[in-house]
């Protein structure tokens, strides 16, 4: 699944996020409700899906009651968006119950999914439970490329069928186009899939190492040559964004929070720094008192030492979570991010 949050940032929402950032309210929170998935994506950050689910991952998944406790805790802390993810969230038999529960607490239940399990009945159940919105990941524009990536036959057509059902239901729907080495040549076709259906989309180049430390996920990362082609190509405006404010800090542990399927609390679902586990301590207690979370909250711009002196900072859109996963250093730099920032900088100054 994509780790990015797809919703529109209206002016009012922007103000709310700023307030939440300042006051450490996890306004946008993500819960992994299962590790099960119907796909076996080669870039999957959970674990190496060519093999079976690791025993510890399987055995330590939160119970339904624990997920309810997490939702209660997030409600108490002031969350507004609750994103359900996985694994494939629609593979959880409890998803509709969780959605209805979030809705009953006046929060906004959203879903990150690959779309392929959303048949007519599932779609109706999700909508009736009060689903507020969905973000579907798109991995290619032909069955061949899709299967190469997901390991599953006909995964494009089943995903598109899910997308069409959700669209028809009227639910707020966004697409995350996941760009990787073997589908980048289909970018215009993937965008066309979205445009034909009048769907909002975002593009993601981000591929990180896996949370289980297995190798191979980053072999999907686009090459420097492919990145240069994107920067010069017909969709260059999507990749040429500037960081004119030289911002390096993320919303981690402030306006966002992530809870893993085993109950580990993270500063963000994309920054797997174990900051406590709900089996030992309540979520509210962890959020307020965890030394890991407080350490992140206290990080200053000047702590990003290499960024402070970096010539490419205005061309860089670093994510501290990704840098942490890939290098173990939250405030550091990652070779791919550096390479891409340099390419962007060099091309724009030509």
């Amino acid at each position, binding site marked *: 699944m994509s780790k990015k949050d797809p919703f529109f940032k*209206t002016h*009012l929402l922007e103000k*709310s996020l700023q*307030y939440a950032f300042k006051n450490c309210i996890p306004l946008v929170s993500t819960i992994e409700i299962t590790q099960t998935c119907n796909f076996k994506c080669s870039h999957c950050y959970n674990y190496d899906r060519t093999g079976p689910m690791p025993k510890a991952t399987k055995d330590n998944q939160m119970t339904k009651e624990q997920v309810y406790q997490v939702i209660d805790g997030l409600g108490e802390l*002031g969350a*507004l968006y609750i994103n359900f993810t996985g694994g494939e969230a629609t593979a959880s038999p409890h998803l509709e119950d969780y959605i209805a529960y979030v*809705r009953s607490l006046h929060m906004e239940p959203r879903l990150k999914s690959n779309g392929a399990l959303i048949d007519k009945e599932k779609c109706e159940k999700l909508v009736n439970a009060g689903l507020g919105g969905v973000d579907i990941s798109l991995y290619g524009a032909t069955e061949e490329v899709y299967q190469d990536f997901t390991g599953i036959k006909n995964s494009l057509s089943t995903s598109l069928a899910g997308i069409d059902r959700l669209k028809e239901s009227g639910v*707020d729907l966004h697409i995350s186009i996941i760009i990787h080495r073997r589908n980048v040549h289909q970018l215009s076709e993937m965008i066309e899939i979205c445009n034909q259906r009048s769907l909002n989309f975002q593009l993601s180049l981000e591929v990180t190492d896996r949370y289980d430390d297995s190798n191979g996920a980053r072999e999907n990362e686009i090459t420097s040559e492919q990145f240069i082609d994107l920067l010069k190509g017909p969709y260059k405006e999507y990749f040429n964004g500037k960081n004119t404010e030289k911002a390096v800090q993320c919303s981690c542990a402030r306006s966002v929070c992530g809870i893993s399927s085993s109950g580990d609390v993270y500063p963000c679902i994309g920054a797997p720094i174990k900051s406590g586990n709900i089996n030992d301590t309540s979520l509210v207690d962890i959020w307020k008192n965890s030394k890991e979370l407080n350490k992140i909250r206290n990080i200053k711009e000047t702590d990003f030492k290499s960024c402070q002196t970096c010539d490419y900072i205005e061309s860089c859109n670093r994510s501290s979570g990704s840098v942490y996963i890939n290098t173990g250093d939250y405030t550091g730099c990652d070779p791919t991010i550096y390479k891409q920032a340099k390419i962007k900088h060099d091309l724009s100054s030509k």
Partner: protein
Amino acid sequence: MTNPKRAQHLSWRKLGEHTVILDSRVNQEVHHLNEVGAYLWELCTGENSLSDIKNNLVSDFDIDEGTADKDIMYFLDELRTKSLLDTTEGTNE
């Protein structure tokens, strides 16, 4: 008159003295309430009558009944215009 009740499929959060409301039926449209609006919004549960709401407002904000009436009517009109009130259910006053 029906007791005012918030529409279904809305989400909201109090952030300081303000309240932000999300309406996912309309592409995640976001509304914002000031302190008095946030206060009134909390009372629109479908269980409070208009006079309950007025009495609360008068005592908590130290304003006269006429002003309270006007504020409440204006607020409810705004909510109706934005389809933020439930028009299907509610008990009668």
